[in-house]
């Protein structure tokens, strides 16, 4: 009897020592290349009532010819103006009447067309959407209207000036300047023919839907041959001079950007996760300058352009005009950040942060549109946090962080962009 009690006790102790592991977020997706070249990425969520779709063309601002800068953005707008088969109102009403939503986005390396509709209407929505995307009308009166709309969009409060874009504009030698007004219908048509090919498309669908039906529909789209294209983009690595600009800054006295070119990080895979954790660490650092009575509330993010990674610090100031004194203050702040990174332990924080990010990822399974956006970022933005990065975050050591700072940041030159209010 005593022996049995001992066994029972040992079993109890053993069971209590087994760690209760939380179920990690399962955000894996399926991926297929169809005969016409379309890459179909999908995840079925049977518990929801809608389906979200995203059609991605891998062409954006960085791919534009110098004489037609802004062309990918104009094309994105023009798609929604309809074609011979479907007017702008037809598409709008089709989606609206189903209680759905749609949107378009142009960014550095891609153009996205997104949609969310009740599950039963996915195929009809995609049918019309893809027809507009692959066969836009591009009527002249519509193009005139969209050029005006883009002019308003570019000057909108808060969107008109963005130190991040100005920084990249400098290192790409004004690749983001817009010459939309002078773009002709012919060049727009040619650009569309060159880039909007089924062989280059990625279609991401998440939610409640029948994948076989979607595959059948996508596979029925005509195949377009894909030629070896030369990107128009070129990056000037040697331009590390500082830039001072003047522009409309609404309510702000100046914006400052300090960009560190993390040369060699693309080949140093082990350090990439470390780089991705730095914005989280610095965001939570809450460093404060008590002499100046100011928080060091820089926006910090990791960005990738072409084959290079950049760690970018952006500061916006509503209170003081830019001066030499402030310039020195910002330089000192960079040293503060690096010292903070080198001398503190972040093990507990990174474990906590990793767990909280995993928890948040779990909630994506209830939201088809959010999950869809997550997949798009993971596939097209190497600097974005993936599920694997979030897991790896908890084992990034303070020693690795210190080594990273010493190798890539400490004592390194940075590109400085100052935008002063007009």
């Amino acid at each position, binding site marked *: 009897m005593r022996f049995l009690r001992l066994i029972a006790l040992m079993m109890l102790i053993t069971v209590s020592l087994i760690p209760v592991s939380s179920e990690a977020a399962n955000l894996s997706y399926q991926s297929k290349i169809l005969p016409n070249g379309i890459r179909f990425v999908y995840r079925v969520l049977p518990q929801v009532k809608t389906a979200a779709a995203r059609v991605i063309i891998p062409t954006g601002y960085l791919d534009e010819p110098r004489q037609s800068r802004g062309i990918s953005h104009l094309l994105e707008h023009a798609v929604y103006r309809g074609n011979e088969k479907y007017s702008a109102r037809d598409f709008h009403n089709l989606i*609206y009447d189903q209680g759905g939503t749609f949107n378009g986005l142009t960014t550095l390396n891609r153009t996205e067309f997104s949609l969310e509709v*009740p599950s039963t209407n996915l195929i009809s929505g995609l049918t019309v959407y893809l027809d507009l995307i692959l066969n836009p009308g591009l009527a002249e009166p519509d193009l005139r209207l969209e050029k005006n709309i883009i002019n*308003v969009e570019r000057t909108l409060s808060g969107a008109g000036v963005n130190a991040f874009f100005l920084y990249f504009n400098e290192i790409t030698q004004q690749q983001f300047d817009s010459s939309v007004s002078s773009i002709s219908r012919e060049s727009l048509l040619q650009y569309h023919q060159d880039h909007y090919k089924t062989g280059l498309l990625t279609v991401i669908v998440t939610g409640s839907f029948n994948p076989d039906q979607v595959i059948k529909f996508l596979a029925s789209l005509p195949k377009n041959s894909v030629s070896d294209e030369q990107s128009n983009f070129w990056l000037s690595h040697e331009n590390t001079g500082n830039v001072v600009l003047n522009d409309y800054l609404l309510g702000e006295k100046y914006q400052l950007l300090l960009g560190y070119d993390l040369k060699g990080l693309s080949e140093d895979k082990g350090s990439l996760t470390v780089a991705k954790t730095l914005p989280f660490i610095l965001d939570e650092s809450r460093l*404060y300058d008590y002499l100046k009575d100011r928080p060091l509330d820089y926006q910090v993010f990791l960005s990738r352009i072409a084959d290079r990674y950049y760690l970018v610090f952006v500061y916006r100031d509503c209170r003081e005009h830019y001066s030499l004194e402030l310039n020195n203050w910002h330089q000192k702040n960079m040293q503060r950040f690096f010292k903070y990174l080198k001398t503190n332990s972040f093990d507990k924080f990174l474990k906590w942060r990793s767990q909280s990010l995993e928890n948040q990822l779990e909630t994506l399974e209830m939201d088809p549109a959010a999950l869809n956006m997550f997949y798009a970022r993971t596939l097209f933005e190497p600097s974005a946090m993936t599920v694997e990065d979030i897991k790896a975050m908890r084992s990034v050591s303070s020693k690795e962080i210190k080594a990273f700072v010493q190798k890539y940041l400490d004592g390194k030159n940075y590109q400085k962009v100052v935008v002063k209010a007009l």
Partner: protein
Amino acid sequence: MNRIRRLVFLRYSFGIILGLFFLLAPVFADPNSPEKRDDGLVVISRNPPKGEHRPDQYLTMILKTGYACDPKGKAGLTVLTNELLINFFNETSALKFSYETYADFSIFNFLIAHGSFEKFCVELDSIIRMDALLVYDLLNERIQAHQNIPQFPGTVAAAQLDDLLFGRDHPYSQALRENYRNLIINDVNNWFRQSYRPNNLIISSSLPLPKDFLRKPAGRDFLEKVSSEIPSVQCRPIPEVKFTENHDQTSSIFLGIPFPSLKNEGFFASILLKNYLSEELWREIREKEGLCYDLQVSYSYLPESSAPVLRIHFQTLPKDTGTGIIKVISVLKKIAASGVPEEDLARVFKWEKNQVDTENNPLLRSTVDRALLALFEQTWLSDSTQYLERLNKVTQEDFLKILSEKLGSLKISVAGPAGARESLKGIYQEIISLRKADK
């Protein structure tokens, strides 16, 4: 003797039946019915069906204090207090949360893992029962962060519109006029102690709350009733325009009309009217004319529940400012004269129905709706069938009535460069016609 036995039997039967009634009453009680406790806390909890297995649970907390309750000279106090509390909520076991500080109340929504629900309730309980927020450094940081938020022209135009609608000194106009430099830690702590009391809270949850939730003694007064009287709005019943020149490349335009509150008969027509205007103005101003990039139509029946406003907001190039405004006024006048086309009315109703039918997270939705039901005491808030039925009963006369009563109080606010002022000259005829129509 038989008669006595019969009486005894009846008496005991009656007692048993009465006992059974009180015992079983909670089983048959309306699960949507808020329960007001003796300490003033209003609780509305769902009893999950037996055998339900789900990983996610929800809790919505309404604080019956919003930014319009800020004491005079302390605009920003409620926003700041809520922001400081967020830091404590960040440390709880909630997976995710969101919050809004509206004029009359603040609302916090929490997503909690099923297994952590009780733990979260304990955490929330201890946060609310705190004596004080000992967060001097964080307070300083938040105040500094607010000082560094730019005043965009859109903000200037929005604040100007609030002045026209509510009056410069009305608490509703304070949303965009916080002055955080006036606030110190004592203000925040006093406000926290005064506002965060059971009698000022509503909790709606997808699981029953622990029995001792907010029952443990607190080191401060939990009993005094919180009073927050917001004066009524005196909106001048005439159309008005205000322009502020600023250094910008576009004009920020706001139009506002006082609209019915959600307890008012005209509320359901207002919902459909707002949806219709979103579509129609997008069509007229962006699609047909290419005048704006983004156009927003909003109806603030929750954010400004005592005096809601229909707001129309967009931005244009300075030369198009007057044209854009005239387009909006002509659409409004057309509806005021002949209502909403039947085909479009059916379309906007169908859109509302689709929102209900395709809700991906009905448990979150119902938790929030029950909290709002407890606040506003309107049963349709947590009954989508009732809500759609009421929407379906809206007629053309309802639209005509709202606009004939309200359009004469249209307010227009513009912030833009000097070129926009020139363009505004064309709208004065339209304004005069609104005044004449009102007469």
